[in-house]
């Protein structure tokens, strides 16, 4: 009851400013809209770890010095960075998804949802950005440090795991945070294949209510807020991980 009054008060106040938020009082549209926010947050929360893990693997392949590992990853990274995410998503959804469906004998057997494809495509796209950032960090680790580790009997993998990646992660953190911010923004392409994230939900509302400006204000505020939080967490991690004297 208290909640209803607050919603009513908000609608009334916004109405006086000339902004139409009346759909909030209806059950159905407000529900779609709230689900849209949750879907976007869920999408972001799932895609960030995917992009970080894959980005780390890519960076390790790129700096391995083995051509059979680095060449395919390099090709994938260049292809991903230089083609639009939307085209990759449509290609994956229309072509790869159909191929998977045919292999499994019909679309009804296909367990891959549009949500999965958005996570996969956006995650891999941003992983390519991370890979370049981490690669730069790995190459910036002084060679004397690697030689010292080798002298102490570390294997190639141990050097990567205990020396290069911890240092590279710290120096590439600002670039990684930039990548994550572009990840948050890229999740909106999901609306091309009817993933009901916030942009899609907003379109549903404004086609009914014709209140584009009002929805845009909320959308811009929402994305500013998520990106602000992501940037703040990035700063916090950076401060937590800083090694005094290492100059990072």
């Amino acid at each position, binding site marked *: 009851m208290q909640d209803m009054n607050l919603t009513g008060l908000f609608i009334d106040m916004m109405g006086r400013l000339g902004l139409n938020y009346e759909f909030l009082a209806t059950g159905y549209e407000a529900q779609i809209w709230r689900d849209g926010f949750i879907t976007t947050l869920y999408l972001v929360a799932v895609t960030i770890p995917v992009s970080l893990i894959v980005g780390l693997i890519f960076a390790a392949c*790129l*700096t391995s*010095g*083995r*051509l059979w590992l*680095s*060449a395919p990853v*390099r*090709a994938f990274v*260049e*292809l991903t*960075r*230089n*083609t*639009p*995410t*939307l*085209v*990759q998503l*449509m*290609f994956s959804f*229309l*072509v790869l998804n*159909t*191929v998977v469906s045919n292999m499994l004998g019909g679309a009804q057997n296909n367990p891959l949802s549009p949500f999965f494809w958005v996570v996969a495509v956006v995650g891999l796209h941003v992983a390519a950005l991370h890979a370049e950032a981490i690669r730069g960090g790995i190459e910036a680790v002084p*060679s004397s440090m690697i*030689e010292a580790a*080798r002298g102490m009997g570390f294997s190639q993998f141990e050097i990567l795991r205990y020396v290069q990646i911890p240092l590279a992660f710290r120096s590439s953190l600002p670039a990684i945070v930039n990548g994550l*911010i572009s990840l*948050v*923004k*890229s*999740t*909106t*392409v999901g*609306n*091309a294949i009817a993933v009901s994230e916030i*942009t899609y939900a907003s*379109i549903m509302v*404004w086609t009914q209510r014709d209140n*584009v*400006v009002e929805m*845009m204000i909320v*959308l*811009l505020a929402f*994305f*500013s807020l998520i*990106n*602000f939080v992501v940037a703040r967490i990035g700063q916090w991690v950076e401060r937590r991980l800083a090694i005094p004297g290492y100059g990072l």
Partner: protein
Amino acid sequence: MSMTATQAPKTTAKSSRVLRSIGFVAMPLLVVIWSLVDLTLGKELVEWIPYLASGFSMNILITICAVTLGTTAGVLLGLMQLAPYWFVRLPAQIYVQIFRNAPALVLIFATTYIFPFEIVVAGNYLPFPDWVKAVIGLAILSSAYIAEITRGAVLSIPTTQWEATKGLGFSRLQALRYVILPQCVRRSLPPWMNVASSMAMGTSLASLVGVHELMHAATDASTAVRRLDFTIIAYVVVMAAFFTLCYPIARLTRRLEQRFNAG
């Protein structure tokens, strides 16, 4: 020990050289070979190529307009952010903060649905086409990025230079015009090219608001032909087109960055 240390960069240099030469031609080559292997597919593709090309010319048009508009507005906004008066500085800062964080798609939707489909100029109804709205959407986004690039570039010039120009009797604007900005152009060229290339890729989003561009053309073509292999090849053509547009820009950017870092 030293063998492995010197070998690693050599193999990556070799791999990148091989990839660089393959990179430009791999996808067009794939399209050509596939069309020749399956001639019925090749015939369909040849029929649809002019349609796809007309779509891609729209992408290039939108990119050029959006980047031009965005650069002009962005440089002004970047300089406004550095203005000594708060009433000039603050609006620019708010604009940049809001639109830098906005997804390109949201801005394209905003401009498409908020602006009317025709405008009245001196009693005449002029159509306001969707592609122009997409240009404005992308220009808003790129102007926010470019404002930050401009601000960063101006701030990266040592303050002693400002003091020196003051000593030489330049006004603040003259110093900016003749001393500071010419140096900024060089420093901000690589990030500016990154923005230009991401705008070029962003033009594909205009297909979602019904602008006839490459992505839209490919969807039309694949629904008209209704063959899975044609759908695949159509999207490979789309990717190849964007790749041949953006990859040279990316390579040039990296080369410029390396040269500036060295020099």
